[in-house]
């Protein structure tokens, strides 16, 4: 009996030892919460917005100084934020089912929108700054006229939570990702559903357009990364699909350079994939959001984590894996 008990405890100690966590020394931003869901860069990448509980903080990416703080707009956790291309407007949405439009320059609320019933999981401002798109747990995507703060169209084609909404770089298309495993593409001008992309086998968590607008990349709980060719919007086709590991992939972002993207997920691994190889960094905390810094010095990403706040890293801190070795 005693022998068996010792064997059980021995086994448990060996297993637990195998899972000891490691933390790296990375550039981090001072936030109240260690769990951050939403981040966004200004157009030039000089400032980084962070959704820290129900407050939005804007930091300088170079000095990591707090530049501005946007308070009293939300009653609960903010899940998604975005800054307009001209860096004058900030939008935020979250658990309180409210979208707040902020004057980024004068730090005041321009309007507070409560049209959505569920939690707001994703918001984005169109590249021309005229529209706002949002999605959430009521399964609908909402297109707003940003200046009038009015809903101009509700897209009700999804049957499960909307996890991510994105405008194409030219602002003509909207892509919505959902828990129903489908990505829908809408035309902004006509509000028409152009295509429903099926290929994921579980929740789609994030999507990103390539900067030239010819590709869309998606990731999800099925650990798959799918690249879609959307150069002809009426003949959208799956260009490439690959399964990377077993964990949920929560965020993905295309870099300006064609073919380079970054992703992360529940296993705490940041991966920047280039056409010739990939950079990897393990931070042992789930990655909620990953974004390339638009400043084009190195491949540099900001990462919102579940447990480590927001960190920034570039490829110099990351392990290189050359694809040519496997050819």
């Amino acid at each position, binding site marked *: 009996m005693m022998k068996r008990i010792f064997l059980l405890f021995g086994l448990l100690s060996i297993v637990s030892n*195998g899972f000891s966590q490691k933390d790296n020394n990375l550039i981090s931003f001072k936030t109240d919460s260690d769990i951050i869901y939403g981040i966004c860069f200004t157009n030039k990448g000089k400032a980084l917005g962070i959704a820290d509980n129900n407050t939005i903080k804007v930091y300088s990416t170079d000095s990591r100084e707090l530049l501005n703080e946007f308070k009293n707009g939300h009653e609960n956790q903010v899940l998604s934020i975005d800054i307009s291309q001209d860096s004058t407007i900030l939008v935020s949405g979250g658990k309180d089912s409210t979208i707040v439009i902020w004057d980024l320059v004068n730090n005041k609320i321009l309007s507070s929108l409560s049209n959505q019933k569920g939690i707001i999981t994703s918001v984005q401002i169109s590249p021309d700054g005229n529209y706002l798109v949002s999605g959430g747990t009521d399964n609908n995507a909402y297109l707003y006229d940003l200046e009038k703060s009015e809903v101009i169209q509700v897209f009700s084609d999804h049957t499960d939570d909307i996890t991510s909404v994105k405008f194409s770089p030219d602002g003509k298309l909207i892509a919505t990702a959902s828990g129903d495993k489908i990505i829908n593409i809408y035309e902004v001008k006509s509000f028409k559903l152009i295509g429903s992309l099926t290929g994921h086998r579980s929740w789609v968590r994030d999507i990103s357009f390539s900067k030239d607008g010819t590709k869309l990349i998606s990731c999800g709980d099925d650990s798959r990364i799918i690249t879609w060719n959307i150069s002809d919007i009426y003949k959208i086709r799956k260009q490439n699909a690959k399964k990377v590991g077993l964990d949920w992939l929560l965020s993905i972002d295309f870099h300006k350079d064609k073919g380079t993207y970054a992703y992360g997920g*529940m296993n705490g691994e940041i991966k920047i994939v280039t056409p010739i190889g990939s950079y990897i960094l393990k931070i042992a905390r789930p990655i909620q959001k990953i974004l390339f810094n638009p400043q084009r010095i190195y491949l540099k990403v900001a990462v919102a984590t579940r447990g480590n706040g927001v960190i920034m890293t570039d490829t110099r801190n990351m392990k290189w894996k050359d694809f040519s070795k496997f050819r």
Partner: protein
Amino acid sequence: MKNSILKIVTLIICIYSRSLDCEAQVIDNKVNIYAEYIIGIFHGKELIEEKNFIYPSLYNNLKDIDGISLKWLYKNHQHISLGINVILLQASNWEYTGHSEYHGSKIKMQSISPTIQFHSKFSETNIFNRGRVFIEIGPTVGLSKLTLSNPLFDIQNEKDAVSIPMKSNDIFYGLTGNVGLEWAITQLIGIYITYSLQFNWVTSKLYNDNQFTSSQLGIGIIMKFKKDKRYFY
């Protein structure tokens, strides 16, 4: 044989766990299936006194208990799961000095227990990032099948056709409580250990025990299904 299996399973789990990287966050899931190997002992007096007679206890002198259990739990609250536990146990190796009534006898017990589990959540940091503690309680009802190896008494008059009972199927009922620690290996698989205490009432024609208490130590594998997709909102 059992020892060899246990050693092989231990070795496989050790190698497997070593080869895995740490996952940053384990998601609480909606449905868990627990499969467990159990060893245990009976507790209580070895002698039972009834109507001025003293008998050796059947259950409390059985030295070996082992078996398996299969449990299905559905998480319907952040810290509470409900489900059903099916336990199959066998007890043998009856020993009591100076007595041989139940030598070589075996008991097979099949029971079912609606279970409520109170559990912690997987946290973002520290040991509970991968570990979860739980307490379970539930009523139990089951069937205890006794097979004697020798008749309990001799029939002197060989002319009378008397069938000597060698088997007895008795219903028992009681309470089961478990405490345990589960350890997530991946999002899909985990291992766990439990300590269980069972208290049951039983009546039978072939023995005088009317209650028995047992404690069990178990090790098992958890298979996790139906993840909580909205884990962060």
